[in-house]
């Protein structure tokens, strides 16, 4: 459906988007996720046609649209501030795209009504858009973007202007609506939770470069680098020594006596940085003394979080997070940290 080929955008000497290539199949919901300044919005704006790539190509259905102005691309877009026309009412806002694309005048009222009904705003036709609540404005913006039935929908942080409580509900409604419509969508966000809740796949970006493009689960379980690991979900990093290697797998020694199985990533020499998700680790009391195999640590505090219990543990001069299902025991003082391999542990090249 959509292909980006070595897309690049420079503003002066800064590279906003660096050699970005990706492919988006029909009907998929893709998120561009990354911290601010990572190039995700610039990428979206290039797809929409508001920015022209410095180099590279954008293809839709195999057709090169890189040089096409926005109005000829036929894409729907929902803006961060919604960009509703303040001088037009709800009906006129939604009808705008239909008129501009030359829909037969007789069909417009019905299409507008359908679009408004779809976002639960039937009967709001004559309201001033400025009199609507933030959530309603967001839905008008969505109805307006979807009314001309675009093949591709672009969403630029459409939830960021809503307050926290409304955001979650709107997010779920958005997911249900877009699945029902079955439209191919690209969603820009810096919020990992939002991206996880909505996306089929997520493209994690940093400093203009695509880091990893994968399903939410794959990003979480098998991040390709420490940045993705720490940006998507929580991650503990501990330095370790490689003891043995077996293809992509290997055994590392953490601290004095703990030996953990890890996936070795490219560039990992003998000294590595091991990434473990909080739930990939567990605790045992050190007091029993018997089995000393494990990483020694000291519990700083414990916090009950419903389905899990979260421990802050100090080890090797660092502070890590260990998450144990259920009430998760009641460890105190000296403990042994052991790895349970699920989700898997990863060893990256040592950054220090």
């Amino acid at each position, binding site marked *: 459906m959509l292909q980006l080929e070595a897309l690049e955008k*420079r*503003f*002066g*000497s800064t590279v906003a988007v660096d050699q970005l290539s990706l492919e988006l199949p029909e009907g998929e919901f893709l998120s561009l996720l990354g911290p601010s300044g990572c190039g995700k919005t610039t990428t979206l704006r290039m797809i*929409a*046609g*508001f*920015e*022209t*790539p*410095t*180099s590279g190509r954008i293809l839709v259905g195999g057709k090169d649209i890189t*040089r096409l*102005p*926005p*109005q*000829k*691309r*036929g*894409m*729907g*877009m929902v*803006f*961060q*501030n919604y*960009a*509703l*026309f*303040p*001088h037009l009412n709800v009906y006129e806002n939604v009808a*705008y*795209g239909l008129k*501009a*694309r030359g829909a037969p005048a007789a069909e417009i009222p019905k299409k507008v009504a359908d679009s408004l009904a779809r976002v639960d705003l039937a009967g709001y036709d004559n309201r001033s858009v400025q009199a609507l609540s933030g959530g309603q404005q967001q839905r008008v913006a969505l109805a*307006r*973007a979807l009314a*001309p039935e675009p093949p591709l929908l*672009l969403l630029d942080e459409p939830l960021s202007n809503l307050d926290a409580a409304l955001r979650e509900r709107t997010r779920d409604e958005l997911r249900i609506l877009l699945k029902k419509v079955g439209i191919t969508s690209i969603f820009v966000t810096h919020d990992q939770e939002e991206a996880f809740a909505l996306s089929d796949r997520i493209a994690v970006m940093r400093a203009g470069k695509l880091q990893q493009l994968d399903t939410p689960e794959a990003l979480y379980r098998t991040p390709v680098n420490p940045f993705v690991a720490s940006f998507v979900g929580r991650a503990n990093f501990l330095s370790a020594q490689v003891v043995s290697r077996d293809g992509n797998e290997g055994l590392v020694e953490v601290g004095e006596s703990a030996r953990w199985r890890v996936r070795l990533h490219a560039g990992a020499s003998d000294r590595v940085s091991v990434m473990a998700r909080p739930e990939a680790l567990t605790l045992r009391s050190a007091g029993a003394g018997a089995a000393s195999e494990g990483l020694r640590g000291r519990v700083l505090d414990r916090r009950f979080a419903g389905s899990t219990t979260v421990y802050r543990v100090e080890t090797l001069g660092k502070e890590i997070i260990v998450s144990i299902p259920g009430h998760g025991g009641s460890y105190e003082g000296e403990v042994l940290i052991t790895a349970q391999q699920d989700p898997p542990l990863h060893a990256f090249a040592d950054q220090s």
Partner: protein
Amino acid sequence: MSAAGTSAPSRLSRSRAVGRGGVLGGIVTLLLIWLVAYPNIFVLGDSVLEGGSFTLEFYQRFAESRSEREALWNSIWISAASVFFSGVIGIPLAFLFSRYEFPGRAILGGLVSLPVLLPPLVGVIAFLFLYGESGFLARIVQGLLGMERPPWRLTGPWAILLVHSYTMYVYFFLFVSAGLARLDRGYAEASAALGASRVSTFRRVTLPMLGPAIAGAALLVFMTSMGSFSAPYIFGGGFRVLTTQIYVSKLNGDLAIAAVETVILAAVSIAFLAGLQYYEEKQTFTGAGKGMLGGSERIRKGRRTTLTLSAAAWALTIFLLLPHAMVLLVSFVPEGTWTIELFPPEYSVRNYVSLFSESEMLTPIVNSLQMATIATFANVVLAFAAAYLIVRGKFKGRRLLGALIVLPWALPGTVLAMALATTFNQNQPLAGRFLLIGSFAILPLAYFIRNIPLVTRAAMTSFRQFDPSLEEASASLGAGWPTTMRRVALPLVLPGLAAGALLAFVTALGEFVASILLYTHRTRPISVAILSELRAFDFGGAAAYGVFLIALMAVVFLLGYGKVSNGPGV
């Protein structure tokens, strides 16, 4: 913002992103260079060329002539004195209206801002009717003392100063009022909390923060006085200033000297505009912090003080507006009936009837209405395009375009008229020169150029107020550039643009400074007609024209468009 990369694809992408903006930007910039900047070259040329070769002889003649040096010096000291007296009236007035609450404050605040909107010539005749030798005040004094001749004549530098400070205090009033409104009450409170007395709070916090506002007003008044023509022309007598000197030199056919005078006047004005812009930038800096309390609480005093304040404000307002009321009074006096009496013995609407029934008197009104309409229409079209380009455009010439837009503000009407007169006095289409002098087109052109800053800045303010993503939304919904402009940008910019256009229209309707140098009998505008009525001692007729202009101004003001800032226009 602008891509610094010079590789081919980068340049390609830039021009594409701009789309038609680049082409339009080129057209608008060229148009402005042609009309705003280019004509000045011919004035400059006339001042240094004799028979096609370079000479500084005319400048030397200017420097050696006593009367020329005197005119330059007079212009400068009159302007400086105007700044002083305008400030003396305007600054306390601003404090009175901003800091104290009393009955009628809002209405009076609007009324005292009115003089700046009035056509300068109307202001001048208003003074003539009130303070002139046969004016109302002179009659009272003459009657009371039983004098045979008028007690004074309104002429010379003091008359000019009186008119200037009477009309230009408004700049101080508006600037300082705005400064006080922006001034964060928090600062004053912080200062008081730190133990400062009211006097030292005022001296050490309020005044320094108002500095930029006062300096800005002072520069504006200075510039306006430098370019002022009406007052010195009517009241100057033998007192020369640069603007009247240019007029006289041109009438005498001494075009080279007129050109030198024009260049010097333009140079001084541009220098002051540069200063003004510097202070404007500084001013926007004041109180620009976030989350500040806007404005200051007005002080309510006890009942007696409030009544005194209110009475003082009313008296002051009446005093300031009295000259304009005189215009109204005189307009109802039939020609030749008011001779030695204190009050007119007879009132009638005869002056108004003849204004609209005698073709000789109606022609100027029709002329002015036509010419102002044409000029304003052109202003609106240009302002929309130029404002869009300056606010939204990405092309390289944006700064140049912005400078060209404000240039007409820097150039007094006399300078503009001279530039047009020297450029459009011959037909050389390839050099961009056409024979427009003596044609109907020259005055609308002059009005158009003079009002470019006013209308364009009004449109720019509107463009800045709406989010560019609205245009992107329109494009993403499939609307082409023309549709986006028509259905999104135009409706959103329209209120500001209309406000600017209305003000431009009434300004053009009463324009005098450029008109007097460029009109022909067939195209004579209202202002020139007022002048000839004065010359014929038909004060009633002149006043009726004046009331017509004032009434139109009042309509504009009442429509709520009084807030659009006016440029120097005297």
